[in-house]
């Protein structure tokens, strides 16, 4: 639990921040992540998944014979600091950048990386990220324009809801999700009877829960960040909400389940990425992650892990460390676990940098996420 400068990679990387000499023998891929503040759960999961992949790849000789060098820079979950950190690493001419996870930070950073023609593999899920025509931004998780139709179908066909309440976090991630969700609800004639925004980092959800109860919707869609999700679930159970609580990936994440301490049981929803996926490679990754970091990885850990393998595969395909060539090759690429085992599941990146792959419907049972159905790729 007590963590103080724990990874050899980090030490190696911290030297590398000011190391143009080192940069010649290594592939410089800095990570800009939410290591503290409201996004710390997401950022540290992404970081640890990423470090696992980096150490695996480096142990096998690195990318094109060069070791990956990854300094960790903390955004403190703040978009302004995130931008400053990106500006800082751009001086060292990185090959690619990993992170951030918060969509608000990504939307600010990606302008800089686009100008510098540096590929940026982000954890943000806001739909807007890949709709701005930036050829250098890529995701390793679903954007909201991919996940919300799936959750909307589940609301209609699985929950059979005629009315829904929506609780969302008022940041780029939450607003984008809320807008896409409501659009999908309208197209399926499901009435939104409560539309409640909350603040990032909000601690007390009692008033929001009372409002949701008053709306008496058939189901409640919860779209918050990890810690807020846990606080909301605790309050919802405390006040005896008995309507189905439906979420998208985050709400069913293991960290949320752990923090909610029993209050997450019964939560259902769509899960884009999960270590409980009935796929041996994913479960092996989860076991390795747990063994190394002593906690259960959430979807952000998988994002970080696959992001590094995505860079490795595309780079080895183009055969050179060229950001522009990387961006051109990565659009439209399909990577299978046979080609690159570290990618875990077959994935395709479209012309916008969005990813398409299988996903899952899940439910929280006895403090564990249980996958009840596997959904095919949207492109199939």
């Amino acid at each position: 639990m007590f963590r103080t400068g724990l990874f050899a990679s980090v030490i190696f990387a911290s030297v590398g921040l000011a190391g143009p000499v080192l940069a010649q023998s290594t592939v410089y891929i800095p990570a800009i992540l939410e290591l503290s503040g409201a996004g710390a759960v997401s950022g540290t999961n992404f970081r640890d998944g990423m470090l696992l992949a980096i150490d695996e790849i480096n142990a096998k000789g690195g990318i094109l014979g060069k070791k990956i060098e990854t300094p960790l820079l903390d955004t403190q979950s703040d978009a302004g600091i995130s931008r400053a950190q990106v500006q800082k690493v751009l001086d060292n001419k990185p090959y690619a950048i990993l992170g951030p996870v918060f969509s608000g930070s990504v939307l600010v950073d990606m302008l800089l990386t686009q100008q510098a023609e540096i590929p940026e593999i982000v954890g943000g899920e806001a739909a807007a990220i890949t709709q701005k025509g930036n050829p250098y931004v890529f995701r390793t998780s679903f954007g909201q324009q991919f996940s919300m139709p799936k959750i909307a179908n589940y609301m209609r066909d699985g929950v059979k809801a005629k009315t829904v309440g929506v609780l969302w976090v008022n940041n780029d991630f939450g607003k984008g999700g809320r807008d896409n969700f409501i659009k999908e609800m309208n197209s399926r004639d499901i009435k939104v009877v409560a539309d409640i925004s909350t603040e990032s980092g909000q601690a007390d959800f009692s008033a929001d829960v009372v409002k949701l109860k008053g709306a008496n919707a058939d189901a409640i869609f919860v779209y918050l960040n990890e810690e807020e999700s846990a606080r909301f679930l605790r309050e919802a159970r405390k006040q005896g909400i008995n309507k189905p609580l439906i979420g998208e990936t985050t709400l069913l994440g293991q960290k949320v389940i752990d923090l909610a301490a029993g209050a997450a049981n019964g939560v259902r929803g769509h899960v884009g990425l999960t270590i409980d996926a009935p796929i041996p490679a994913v479960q092996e990754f989860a076991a390795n992650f747990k063994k190394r970091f002593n906690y259960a990885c959430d979807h952000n850990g998988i994002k970080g892990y696959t992001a590094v393998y995505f860079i490795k595969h595309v780079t080895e395909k183009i055969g050179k460390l060229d950001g522009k060539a990387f961006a051109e090759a990565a659009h439209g690429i399909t990577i299978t676990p046979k080609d690159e085992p570290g990618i875990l599941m077959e994935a395709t990146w479209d012309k916008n940098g969005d990813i398409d792959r299988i996903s899952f419907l899940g439910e929280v049972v006895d403090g564990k996420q249980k996958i009840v159905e596997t959904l095919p790729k949207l492109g199939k």
Partner: protein
Amino acid sequence: MASFIQLLVSGLATGAIYALIAVGFTLLWQTSQTINFAQGEFVMLPAFFVLAAMNAGAPFWPAALIGVALSIVILGILFKFIIVDPMFKYGVLPLVISTIALSLFLKEGVKDFYSSQAQSFPALVPASDIHVFGAVVSTQSLAVLAVAIVTVIVLHLLLTKTRTGRQMQATAQNPLLARILGIPVQRMVLYTFLLNAVLVAIASILVSPIYLAKFTNGETLGMAAFIAAIIGGFNQVRGAVLGGVILGVLDNLSAAYISSQYRGAFPLIILIAVILFRPQGLLGRIEERTV
């Protein structure tokens, strides 16, 4: 009506926690002219003492007692002797700056040595509901409210019905005269710091199941307590209690009936109104000082 009752109970529970923190704030101010800007971090820290004790194998209640004991030592005794006493002779402002520095140290210390991630914290009582006039009221909220009320009553009795309490009040009102009358002023000031440590530890155990234990919790809680103390009256314990309760209830009712987006603004509007129309606070008294 059912919704209103739920909001009221929930707001009272939150407000009662704010009140405990604000009372500690005012006690320190009255006896030692210390405006403790680390008060929020003082509430954040005991939860991590409790969690550390639980990680070491202690059950919750013994761990809670360990948390209170460590708070008394670190946030009471050490705070007074290491920070307040050496800085006191330089006046209020250097002391304020010292407490701001302390708040940063505590926050970053918890982040580095424990975790930057929120931690689950056990609730005082298992979750169950009580139905009151059609409203579903949580036993957890009632437990928080009950513990906070009992704490304030015990504090009130201590300050008004015991010899030590009256000596503490005398020290707060006029330390020079208290010393002439033979009251051990320094010991009374130390007792105040110990009382504050107990209050913040109790507040921490009450609030952490709701907020989750996290190194940033002090930011919100410290600000809430500061506002509550000003609204109620910085120089009155009962004022701090009233300020805390008003803040908690107002926050909930405004979020539910006016706007959840602007919920953070309403306490500040009340604060501005109080400063404009009753600067001594709702229950405070005007203090005159010779300059």
